[in-house]
């Protein structure tokens, strides 16, 4: 009788421990977010000029170059001039740059809204630089790092993801780039061709959220 008692108690304990473990496993689930070909959600976020910006504001756009970027990350900083260049080259052709800061300023104070306003002014950003308040948009896209680019193409009123990844293949030296991934993707879309390299990976700063 005593033995049975001990065994039952042990089983109870083991089951409890097992449940805790199972919950932990769920929290460590795989990356979610868009794949090439998915329909991307629109959003309405506050720009550095305090006005709200939404993809639907751009009635004439053929698509968008959505870039998750931030103030503090050295990789993001290294790409700032190239992001300005992308907007300069493609906004007039129907693919404007929309930059979004996905970081929680409580975790990275440099990425505050005020910091964004200052950075946009200093660098002379010619595109919206939006703040992902409450960090609701970046997880839907599946952005994991800054900078992380999503090229969208408008099709029957929907924004289809056509490219996910890096801006080019050399963050350290803009003069030694062999592949301008984003430009190659947008050029292909502009000439109605499929995007040859539709996804790339690159080192970047992880997006800062409080549970990290």
């Amino acid at each position, binding site marked *: 009788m005593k033995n049975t008692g001990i065994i039952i108690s042990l089983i*109870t304990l083991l089951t409890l421990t097992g449940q805790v473990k199972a919950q932990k496993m769920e929290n460590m689930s795989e990356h979610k977010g868009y794949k090439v070909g998915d329909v991307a959600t629109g959003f309405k976020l506050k720009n550095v000029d305090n006005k709200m910006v939404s993809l639907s504001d751009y009635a004439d756009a053929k698509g968008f170059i959505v870039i998750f970027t931030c103030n503090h990350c050295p990789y993001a900083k290294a790409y700032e001039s190239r992001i300005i260049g992308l907007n300069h080259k493609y906004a007039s052709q129907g693919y404007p740059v929309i930059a979004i800061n996905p970081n929680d300023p409580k975790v990275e104070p440099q990425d505050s809204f005020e910091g964004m306003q200052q950075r946009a002014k200093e660098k002379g950003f010619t595109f919206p630089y939006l703040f992902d308040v409450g960090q609701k948009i970046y997880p839907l896209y599946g952005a994991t790092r800054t900078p992380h680019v999503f090229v969208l193409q408008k099709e029957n009123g929907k924004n289809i993801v056509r490219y996910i990844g890096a801006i080019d*293949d050399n963050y350290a030296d803009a003069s030694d780039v062999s592949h301008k991934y984003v430009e190659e993707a947008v050029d292909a879309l502009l000439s109605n061709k499929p995007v040859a390299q539709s996804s790339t*990976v690159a080192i*970047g700063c992880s997006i800062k959220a409080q549970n990290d």
Partner: protein
Amino acid sequence: MTLKTFMRNLILILIVMISLNSQSQNTKKSMLEYPTVKNVNHKVTVVNFTKLEAILHNKDNKLYVVNFWATWCKPCVMELPDFMEVNKLYHRNPNFKMILVSLDLAKEAESIVQPFIVKNKMDVDVYLLDDNKRMNQWIPAIDSKWSGAIPATVFYRNGVKLDFKESKMEKSELIKIISKYLKQTI
């Protein structure tokens, strides 16, 4: 079995578990009292991916714990003290080797990375991976699911990848994975 007996047994088992747990914590403490790890010159070696891959795929029966980091990466720097402590716990095991791979700029190897290693007493082999233009090849070669965010940690033995984590790791999680593959508990 009455509820009373059940409760009594449950309490007994809990007491046993708690005492076992505290014992293992004591062991941890004594392991931490080991003399400081003998280093490795606090040097950083600049390598390309071909060279790094050869090191990581070394077929010497060692468990390679390989952490990708950078001096500018806050979560990386936050988890480094835990990695150093864990290294102290295991470094005497001949089947264990921790390697840090810096993704700082190669031109900053001596001016920034090296002083950082000295300052933080990083008693492990540190490499700086200088292969920016091939990121799109070596990131998937490390792990097909790696988006490129750091920190990231990969575990190898005899050229076989055992595990991969793209996030900051808790010390307990790191110990758990190492213990699993070394079959050595602490």
